């Protein structure tokens, strides 16, 4: 017989999203357990020794581990428990009677646009979620909970996901791995590095490696503008005289056992390397900062539908997915640029997860999900639904799909079933919008008129405003 424990809320992942979710759920009175596969809580923040965290959440600049420590202390004070070095093997939904639900998620737990009965273990509602876990000290065991918060963070794209010719010798590593080696293990990966990609971790690692005594030959970015925050371009590259080569990429890696050099080339408007622009750069290390993708294995195993633009599950403003009792937050939902926002979405998910677990079917009205439709000009908008039955402010995040230096205006409208406008929800002007810099807005659900079927976001460029 496999040992089983029961909780109100189980949080998968002990990083900034999971800890915030756990703290919020515990504050709402739930019995919360955090499951973390590493030996310490804090997630990726443990290795983010640079500062700049917490300005939004705590009003001061903190280093990553300090920010994590604040949440660990909060969690401890609220009585949150954790299981460390514990892996979740699988998640399934049990039938209402306690029988295993056929391995996959039960259809009964799926919400529809019209809403469905929200239940928590009652005869009519979907059964509880059961996690099968493995740890060295307990072996295989199960955790049962009516609410599950997925706070599994994101993964780095690797050399397998970018098109580079040539050899695959030692010395090719992702920026996050380089960060782990330097900041946690105290090991320098090489002597002379080339960084491909100008994402924030790549920029931060260019500075870290330089401060630790490596030579960073340059940062190469395929796109015509940096992918990272402006402050990181300034403080990580310009401060140290590290050149940033825009519209340039690494096309080939040379070296048999260890990286000896890479070939870089300029690219045209379509991102294709141009013949005759190749240049060989000697280096022993190639650091890749070529993007992050939400970690969605568990979400997929639960049958959650993914938004192709965020690569994360579709959720409402509380992180509630279409699967009853399954909440998603932080970088598992979409890749954020600030830990503060990761925690904010974690807290929203944790509160809602606790409410569902404690209140049961009776306290929750039927969900009324209005899809959020982001028009042209958006890279994405999150959440993908606003649950009109959930009162209070809904926080939404969005990114533009291109740099709008001249500025832009965001207009949010409520639409009826036929697409007719039922109300103007928000107008907000921005001096400039850049895809790397995520924007945050709030919409009061109470301000959304009755009869609204969807919410439309439009982005008006400043040029067109004048004309």
């Amino acid at each position, binding site marked *: *017989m*496999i*040992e089983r*424990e029961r909780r109100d809320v189980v949080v998968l992942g*002990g990083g900034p999203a999971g800890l915030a979710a756990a703290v919020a759920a515990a504050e709402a009175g739930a019995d919360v*357990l*955090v499951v973390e596969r590493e*030996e*310490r*809580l*804090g997630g990726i923040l*443990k290795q983010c*020794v*640079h*500062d*700049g965290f917490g*300005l939004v959440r705590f009003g001061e*600049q*903190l*280093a*990553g*581990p*300090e920010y*994590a*420590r604040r949440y*660990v202390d909060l*969690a*401890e004070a609220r*009585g*949150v*428990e*954790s*299981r*460390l*070095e*514990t892996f979740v093997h699988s998640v399934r939904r049990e039938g209402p009677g306690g029988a295993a639900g056929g391995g996959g998620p039960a259809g009964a737990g799926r919400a529809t646009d019209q809403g469905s009965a929200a239940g928590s273990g009652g005869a009519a509602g979907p059964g509880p979620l059961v996690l099968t876990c493995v*740890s*060295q*000290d*307990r*072996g*295989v*065991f199960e955790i049962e909970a009516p609410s599950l918060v997925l706070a599994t963070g994101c993964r780095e794209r690797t050399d397998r996901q970018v098109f580079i010719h040539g050899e695959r010798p030692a010395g090719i590593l992702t920026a996050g791995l380089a960060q782990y080696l*330097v*900041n*946690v*293990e*105290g090991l320098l990966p090489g002597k002379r590095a080339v960084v491909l990609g100008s994402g924030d971790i790549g920029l931060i690692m260019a500075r870290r490696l330089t*401060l*630790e*005594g490596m030579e960073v030959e340059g940062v190469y970015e395929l796109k015509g503008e940096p992918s990272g*925050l*402006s*402050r990181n371009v*300034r*403080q990580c590259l310009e*401060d*140290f005289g590290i050149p940033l080569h825009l519209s340039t990429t690494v096309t080939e890696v040379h070296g048999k056992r260890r990286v000896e050099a890479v070939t870089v080339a300029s690219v045209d408007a379509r991102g294709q390397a141009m013949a005759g622009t190749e240049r060989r750069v000697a280096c022993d290390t190639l650091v890749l900062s070529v993007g992050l993708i939400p970690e969605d294995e568990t979400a997929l195993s639960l049958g959650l539908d993914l938004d192709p633009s965020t690569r994360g599950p579709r959720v409402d403003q509380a992180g509630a997915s279409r699967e009853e009792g399954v909440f998603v937050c932080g970088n598992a939902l979409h890749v954020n640029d*600030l830990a503060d926002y990761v925690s904010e979405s974690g807290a929203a998910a944790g509160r809602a997860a606790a409410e569902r677990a404690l209140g049961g079917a009776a306290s929750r009205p039927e969900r009324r999900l209005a899809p959020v439709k982001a028009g042209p000009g958006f890279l994405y908008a999150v959440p993908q639904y606003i649950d009109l039955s959930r009162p209070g402010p809904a926080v939404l995040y969005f990114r533009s799909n291109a740099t709008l230096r001249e500025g832009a205006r965001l207009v949010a409208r409520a639409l009826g079933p036929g697409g007719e406008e039922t109300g103007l929800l928000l107008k907000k002007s921005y001096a400039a919008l850049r895809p790397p*810099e995520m924007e945050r807005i709030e919409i009061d659900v109470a301000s959304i008129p009755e009869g609204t079927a969807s919410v439309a976001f439009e982005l008006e460029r400043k040029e067109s405003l004048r004309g």
Partner: protein
Amino acid sequence: MACPRGCALEVDVAEAPAGGREALAVRGNACKRGEDYGRAEVVDPRRSLTSTVRTEGTRRRRLPVRTSGTVPLGRLVEAARSLDSVVARPPMKCGQVLARDLLGLGVDLVATDDLEEEGAVPAAAAKPGAGVAKPGAAAAKPGAAAVKPAAGAQPSAGAPRRGRS
């Protein structure tokens, strides 16, 4: 640049009578913090230093640290190099000072994380080159859990090891 908003600033600069530069006006900032940053950036750019230091007496290899204030940008690399001689020994609390008045720059070096004694292992194992810690090795050290580990999560000698049954 003092915050993630990243306003594009324009600063009017003049040669100061006493030598050096003087900032006359800052534009494009969204807040006072931006104005201060803009002024400082042309007159005397300063940065906080964040890094890690070596540890002894614990299984963790590095402790993250930062300076208590900013140092002149021109001396940042020198300040980073000076950390090579600093060693952290547990127990240590986040915010605790490891070194006072770094290089005479008027800033202290402070820990940005706790360093728990519970994670301690014989000093020999903490030496560089001792190899990357195996995940299994940590299972015997329940103190590694910062948040109270759940009942039963702590291995004890008498507890039955449950596997598939």
